[in-house]
């Protein structure tokens, strides 16, 4: 019984293979961008061949294949999806072009809006109209609709999206249109808004439905091709693919709802953090993934990642409102332009870090690939945190002199700082940016950081994590093993989920009980039906939630709701859940104001069999001394440049305990342990850093 997971990223494809006893082997190969399945099949074939005498590597013994992919995201980012026709209500062909009309930057009048996935010439109008309550105002003009269906059939389109106004309230006209399309073009994949996203607000719903149609042919072909190739290898089991909500889905569901696999990889990464938290006894975890261009921050509460009902793809410089909004449940991640490659510049005698990034090419100055502007990585090298001879496991020699010189001339001299002060300036300004983002994710959203552990990963995460944790009074930092393939490991522990949602306005008064019961009966029937296609037969667990607000507000809060019978008392529980969530989120609530719910959701999770699923990664520690050296490192906490012991992570065992300042080096990253903090290796193999109490800035205030 073997389980294999693979996460296809932009640069590397990461693998994890788990055998029946739970032990996990990890590896990575370069991605083959043009044909992503190629690298997967080639690498697996080679693994199977190399281990042909090990029964765990018998293709026939592979029980599960778990997969995360960027294919849908890339199709949208590169505008390389299908040629889609959009059919919509007469008078509203410009919904996509108009959008919500707000500039993502008030102080910029020279910006552009995201290019719609369907050009204006491919939008067709049909005469029909529903009212907000779903009643028919004007019946669909069937003759004209049939004509439109024929035009679409003859137009050479790859897919079609149908979005009528208020179709979230009643799918009648969309279904009729789908029937006419089925007659005219039986092979054309059709996405209906009443199926893909039955939620009010026409722009977001249209965009979601169109995005679904846009990636559907590509994702379908990809899933089929991958399945065939894996079958050819002798693997009989079905693929499961990660959705943006952090749950796995079957190929059938992914073909029907391909828009839901956007952000597949990052979602798996967060699931990995949840597992690492669980291993270390933490249900509440803040996640911190700092890579080359950005830092991504997330939260796990009670063992589950925070999930939002909307996601924005193709944003400009991570600015909210600059991309295409999608109504999909997505693991909540705040992304800011702070990564190892973020460029530091001076302006007005200040230091500015990011969001411009040197990326991987040319990269930081110290890469020696032509980068000329100093970056966070250059600063970290100058401060002694990075080992020039052991970057990326020694695969790359860093140019320390070049980095220091760049910092000195471009940051130090203009500001009157020496090279160490200037490098420290870059490092600490980057920290301040991330600290602010972390505050938003934690304190501003009602989370008390003192109850959380910080799981840090990514190439630069563990280097910055401890200072970030101190600033927020997070008592413990965890640097997981296998973080370099975190998403692949996350796939191994993820569960199968499917979510359904719809818009129904219900005011929380004496009459609410009936509508709530009807809504959940409907949603739960639908989600159970879908769950039967998830590709697993475990017990189904349901989580209800709703988007709620005070009557008259325009922004809703997602409120987790209890399960149980939806009787008259249940409506009162819904109201209480809202009040408590509002209080936690905003620091006050208004008992006198009426409350309403707009959207309702049920997420079904098929409980996986967790026996033997603990991630046991092979340990290579051999009892050798983990202290492999010492070098001067800039630690203002200890007064400046101080000698600092260097630990080899691969030599650490759970017997070891070191008090900072120390650096722990591993292939993918370096962990900076601050003076007075204690680092040790947990039984599960994770680095655990306990922060010295009393070192953090006071956070005595609480929200009202």
């Amino acid at each position, binding site marked *: 019984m073997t389980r294999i997971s693979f996460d296809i990223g932009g640069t590397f494809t990461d693998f994890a293979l788990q055998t029946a006893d739970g032990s996990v082997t990890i590896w990575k190969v370069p991605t083959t961008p043009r044909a992503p399945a190629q690298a997967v099949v080639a690498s697996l074939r080679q693994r199977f061949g190399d281990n042909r005498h090990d029964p765990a590597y018998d293709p026939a013994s592979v029980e599960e294949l778990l997969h995360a992919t960027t294919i849908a995201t890339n199709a949208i980012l590169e505008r390389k999806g299908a040629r889609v026709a959009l059919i919509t209500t007469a008078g509203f062909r410009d919904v996509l072009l108009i959008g919500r009309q707000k*500039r993502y930057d008030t102080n910029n009048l020279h910006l552009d*809006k995201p290019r719609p996935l369907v050009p204006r010439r491919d939008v067709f109008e049909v005469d029909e109209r529903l009212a907000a309550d779903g009643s028919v105002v004007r019946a669909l003009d069937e003759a004209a609709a049939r004509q439109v269906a024929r035009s679409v059939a003859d137009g050479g389109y790859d897919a079609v999206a149908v979005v009528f*106004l208020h179709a979230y309230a009643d799918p009648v006209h969309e279904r009729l249109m789908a029937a006419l399309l089925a007659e005219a073009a039986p092979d054309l994949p059709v996405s209906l808004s009443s199926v893909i996203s039955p939620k009010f607000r026409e722009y977001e719903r249209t965009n979601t439905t169109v995005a679904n149609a846009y990636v559907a042919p590509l994702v379908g072909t990809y899933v089929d091709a991958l399945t065939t190739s894996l079958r050819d290898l002798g693997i009989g089991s079905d693929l499961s693919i990660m959705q943006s909500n952090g749950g796995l889905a079957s190929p059938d569901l992914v073909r029907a709802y391909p828009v839901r696999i956007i952000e597949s990889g990052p979602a798996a990464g967060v699931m990995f953090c949840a597992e690492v938290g669980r291993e270390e006894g933490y249900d509440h975890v803040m996640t911190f993934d700092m890579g080359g261009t950005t830092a991504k921050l997330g939260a796990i509460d009670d063992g589950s990642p925070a999930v939002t009902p909307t996601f924005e793809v193709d944003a400009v410089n991570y600015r909210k409102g600059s991309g295409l909004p999608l109504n999909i449940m997505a693991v909540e991640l705040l992304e800011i332009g702070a990564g190892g490659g973020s460029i530091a510049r001076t302006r007005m005698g200040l230091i500015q870090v990011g969001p411009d990034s040197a990326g991987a090419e040319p990269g930081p100055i110290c890469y020696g690939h032509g980068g000329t502007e100093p970056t966070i990585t250059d600063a970290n090298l100058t401060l002694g945190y990075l080992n020039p001879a052991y970057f990326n496991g020694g695969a790359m020699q860093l140019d320390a002199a070049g980095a220091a010189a760049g910092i000195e001339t471009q940051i130090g001299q203009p500001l009157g700082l020496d090279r160490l002060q200037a490098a420290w300036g870059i490092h600490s300004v980057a920290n301040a940016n991330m600290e602010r983002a972390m505050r938003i994710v934690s304190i501003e959203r009602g989370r008390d950081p003192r109850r959380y552990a910080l799981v840090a990963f990514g190439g630069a995460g563990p280097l910055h994590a401890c200072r970030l944790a101190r600033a927020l009074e997070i008592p413990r930092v965890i640097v997981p093993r296998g973080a370099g393939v975190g998403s692949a490991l996350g796939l191994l522990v993820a569960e199968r989920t499917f979510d359904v949602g719809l818009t129904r306005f219900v005011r929380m008064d004496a009459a609410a009980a009936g509508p709530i019961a009807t809504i959940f009966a409907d949603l739960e029937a639908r989600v159970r039906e879908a769950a039967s296609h998830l590709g697993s037969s475990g017990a189904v667990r349901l989580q209800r939630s709703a988007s709620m607000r005070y009557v*008259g507000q*325009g*922004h809703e809060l997602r409120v987790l709701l209890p399960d149980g019978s939806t009787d008259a008392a249940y409506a009162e529980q819904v109201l209480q859940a809202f009040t408590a969530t509002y209080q936690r989120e905003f620091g006050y609530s208004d008992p006198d104001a009426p409350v309403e719910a707009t959207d309702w959701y049920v997420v079904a999770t098929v409980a996986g069999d967790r026996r033997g699923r603990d991630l046991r990664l092979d340990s290579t520690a051999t009892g050798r001394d983990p202290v492999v050296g010492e070098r001067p490192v800039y630690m203002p906490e200890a007064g400046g440049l101080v000698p600092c012991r260097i630990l080899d992570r691969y030599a650490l065992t759970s017997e070891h305990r070191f008090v900072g300042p120390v650096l722990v080096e591993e292939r993918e990253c370096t962990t900076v342990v601050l003076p007075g903090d204690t680092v040790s290796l947990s039984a599960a193999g994770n680095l655990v850093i306990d922060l010295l109490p009393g070192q953090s800035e006071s956070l005595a205030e609480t929200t009202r």
Partner: protein
Amino acid sequence: MSSVTQRVDPVTLTVIWSSLISVVDEMGGALKRTAFSEAVREGEDFSTGLFDRQGRLIAQGNFTPGHLGSMPYVLQNVMRFIPLESWEPGDAIATNDAFLGGGHFPDMFLVSPVFDQGGFEKGRLLGFVVNTAHHADVGGVSPGSEGVQGVTSAFMEGIRILPVKLIRNDVFDPDLMRVILGNVRLPEKMRGDLLAQRNANFVGAQRLRRLYAAYGDNQVTQAIEEILERSEARARELIRRLPEGTYSYEDQLDDYGPGTEPIRVAVDVTLKDGEATVDFSRSGDEVPAGINCYINYTRAYASFAMRIFAGIDVPNNAGAERAIKTVAREGSFFNARYPAPGGGRASVQVRIFDAINGAMAQAIPERAMGAFTHWANPKFGGFDRATGKSWIMYDLVLGGFGGRSYKDGVEAMCPVFNCANVPVEVHETNNPVRIHRLELIQDSSGGGEHRGGSGIRKDVEMLADDVTVTLLGDRHLNSPYGLFGGLPGARGRTVLIRDGEESDLGSKEVRKLRRGDVVSFRLAGAGGYGDPVRRDPAKVIDDVKDGFLSRGKAEAIHGAAALTGLD
């Protein structure tokens, strides 16, 4: 009071400055997410400010430019009424006065002192947090309190609150609340928004206290001096890079109600010695209609325009503010005197920008663009017998940008101020209306090497009796101009469709409507940039294929040769 003896190191200064800005951003985030007023939550028609203990603006949340002109002065204004000695922790002072504040009564300011927490003593004053939000209605003759036609004095525009202590010890004064809420159409909405405003100041005060605790009074105080100094220096440096001189432009507003004269909008921008002076004195006089601009409002959009043209990248504060002066003759349309009515002045902001854009096109042609399509900001309202409730539908119809020196104008994006539209499905859920179309108007954009954006058409049918619509639009009589050979956009119209018959409405008319009436907004097209003959024929063909241009119009503007690739 405090002179800079020792400079703060650049790293600490960077971090303190960005933390101060994050205070006003967080205040804004809290306000926006809890607001009831459409103007606040969709239009971000609110602002947040942080002042030091000397009353100087240190950071302002960049939500709408509309309060750039009033925020820096509000604290001084408020202190003239309520001396600082009488301010206690937990107090908040409110005012919506047009002259002291945002230029019309719907903008309610809430000013709170921030003290550090000193045991039994009052604690030391650290500074002030302020926010202002556009409320849905503050009474007066027209729903939404922004009527133009027939509103001849500020006394018709609703309740006017000179600075009062609305909150004491964190609790709203119940007597004052009764006075205020008894004078507005949607008291529940206003109450909710005042709660949101109180909370925003609470969040701001908390963050400011934390900042002082983390860095110490001395360091923060010194950092503030540095911030103001450097901001002013930077703003002046950027203005100094523009070619010195005086640049003038004249445009006009259609009228101030049906059958009235156009309002002259004349601007002289002088760039000299690192300072910009924007002078509207040659413009028309105050008018007897609810559209006059108080100087705070004129200053807001004049500053915004100059920040854009000079590329000023310093967040607004009392230092940066000093580099741009706004002047207008007292008693003129752009420096109105109380009790001149100003409820509908929002309509003017795009024209302030257009005029300055016309002037700056002479100085820095590459940063200028054709004129905007203008926009419509109608309010429908009445008493719905079906629900037994008063209702107000606040709407925003937003068209395109003018052509740019390097690219076409953007379609359907909010000009100058910054606002999201309200979805059709939301309007129809909340109000007794049905919207029949919302689409770009073919052949409306101003042609050019880079064409302007299109006008937008939106048709709204009344599903209730006894509705009053207050219109707030423009560019019905004079087109959005083009630049450097670019053509003007088509003129706009507002049409009443009653029993199948179309009749024109004035752009700022107030009209009674009945069930079944359709008001059709047809915005002007935006102006083009550069000679249309120079337009890339491939783009002309695309425009025809996408239906932005009819074949005939394309041929008329660009010549038949441009269409040879079609078919």
